[in-house]
């Protein structure tokens, strides 16, 4: 018995993006290990999403569909996963590094008594066919490679780092329904309610383009400049901690160690100095643009393109130029 497994997290009735990224990576891993790629889908009324997982490359979908699983609960979700793992002994079990993944993966690992690697930015098979997990440590000032001694080899994977598949595969997956067998006494913690935040609509961790502002924005209303730029680029708006602490932006917009770790194709930082804690959250972005009036600002050390100048002059011109470019 074996398998290369991905936890298929859903949000607002959809499979989240990082699941496709993980399944795509698992196609190669599965082929080399000669093991099937499977997804574990847990929730309520989620059966119709199984075909999406098949299109992303899952050959098998373990489906636990139960009203008791509607909201995430570490007790319930871990119970389902642990019982499946014990039954099938997969070699690999990956999660997205999301709020749920960060909570569920260590819960499952602890129940199984195995190791786990958090927030990985690369996954590779070594010559011994073990998974080599790469992860930033010390606020991204160092990078480490780690292997797990036991199976399943477990990790959470940072969204936006592994290349996604086209998710258009025609293959139908074999769906295996599993009964959740959750009783009320299994659920020790209960979600009373979910308070939606006023933060931007595009999830920062999944965004392809992010426009972020810091203390240099000077006032909350000035973020309109960044919102206009973001609207043109289809980008999410992020913020430094200084901007969040000042009450200018919602905490959910914060990028960095205390906030979100992001990995977009393009990150535009306006009026952000580039502190270590901010860099820890965005340093792996593919292309970084910095706009700062201080030529000594540390953000320029990581920026691919830097503009030393007043953001209030620079940003509106960028918005206009992108608009023209994209209209062509």
């Amino acid at each position: 018995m074996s398998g290369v497994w991905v936890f298929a997290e859903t949000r607002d009735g959809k499979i989240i993006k990082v699941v496709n990224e993980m399944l795509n990576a698992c196609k190669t891993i599965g082929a080399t290990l000669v093991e099937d790629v499977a997804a574990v889908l847990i929730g309520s009324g989620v059966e119709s999403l199984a075909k999406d997982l098949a299109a992303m490359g899952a050959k098998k979908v373990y489906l636990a569909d139960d009203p008791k699983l509607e909201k995430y609960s570490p007790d319930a979700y871990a119970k389902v996963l642990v019982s499946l793992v014990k039954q099938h002994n997969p070699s690999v079990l990956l999660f997205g590094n999301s709020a749920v993944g960060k909570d569920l993966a260590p819960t499952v690992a602890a129940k199984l008594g195995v190791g786990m690697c958090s927030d990985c930015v690369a996954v590779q098979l070594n010559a011994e066919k073990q998974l080599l997990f790469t992860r930033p440590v010390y606020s991204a000032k160092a990078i480490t490679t780690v292997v797990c001694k036991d199976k399943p080899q477990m990790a959470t994977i940072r969204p936006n780092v592994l290349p996604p598949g086209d998710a258009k595969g025609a293959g139908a997956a074999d769906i295996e329904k599993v009964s959740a067998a959750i009783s009320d006494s299994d659920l020790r913690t209960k979600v009373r309610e979910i308070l939606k935040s006023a933060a931007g609509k595009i999830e920062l961790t999944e965004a392809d383009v992010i426009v972020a502002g810091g203390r240099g924005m000077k006032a909350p209303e000035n973020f309109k400049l960044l919102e206009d730029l973001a609207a043109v680029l289809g980008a999410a708006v992020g913020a430094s901690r200084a901007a969040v602490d000042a009450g200018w932006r919602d905490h959910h917009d914060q990028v960095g160690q205390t906030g979100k770790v992001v990995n977009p194709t393009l990150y535009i930082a306006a009026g952000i100095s580039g502190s270590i804690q901010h860099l820890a959250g965005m340093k792996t972005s593919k292309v970084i643009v910095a706009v700062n009036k201080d030529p000594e600002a540390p953000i320029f050390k990581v920026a691919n393109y830097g503009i030393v100048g007043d953001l209030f002059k620079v940003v509106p011109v960028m918005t206009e130029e992108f608009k023209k470019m994209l209209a062509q």
Partner: protein
Amino acid sequence: MKIIVLMKQVPDTETKIQVKPGETAISTDGVTFVINPYDEFAIEEALRIKEAKGGDVTLITLGWDKAAEALRTGLAMGADKAVHLNDPAFLTNDAHSIALALSKTLKKLQYDLILCGKQAIDYDNHQIGVRVAEMLGIPHVAVVTKLVLEDGKAVAHREIEGGTEVVETPLPAIITCQKGLNEPRYASLKGIMQAKKKPLEAKKVADVDASPGEVGQAGAKTVVLTLTMPPDRAAGKVVEGEPEDAARQVVKLLREEAKVI
């Protein structure tokens, strides 16, 4: 209310990290060590609960000799006593192994609530609180920005994508703390003086009923193969000129050179 705080001593984020070639641990020369910032939220929360409801606060750390300094700082903030798992046989970065040593220690103590940080900013495991909860068989709520205690239970606000989950948990439970929970206090001079006399107990592996093979490096479930400095990002272009011209140039470069638009 008996509250226990799990805390770790870590390099200050501002210090320079260096790794000698071939080594899998950082060089500690010249590194400043501090209490993990998320654990300061845990200590502060514990002290506020004690001040409001009575009880006592015990700090636990697993770490080298120097980690005692972090415990003294926590005692100076107002905690009552401290336990230091101080034995080379405990030392590791492996989350399972650290959690096992901590949970074995906790099994011999009484507690109504355990607080810890959401992550330690050295090795960023982001696992210990959740693992300790599992090992003790108690519930956990992670990444908490607000905590309200009610009769025999706690209501915690937990950060999730796009919002906040309000979660209710029976006690005892483990809560992992995130910024937003409170503003940690500084130790007062009086606190620092008092801390010198507060009990700080050092424990070896045998003292927590662990066997040397199951904790520390020997008990690790992961193997660190390499630790390196990330490659520097290639030197970027600083585009000169009037701000408006520079903006135009960068937009052009993003399409024609970087090809990201």
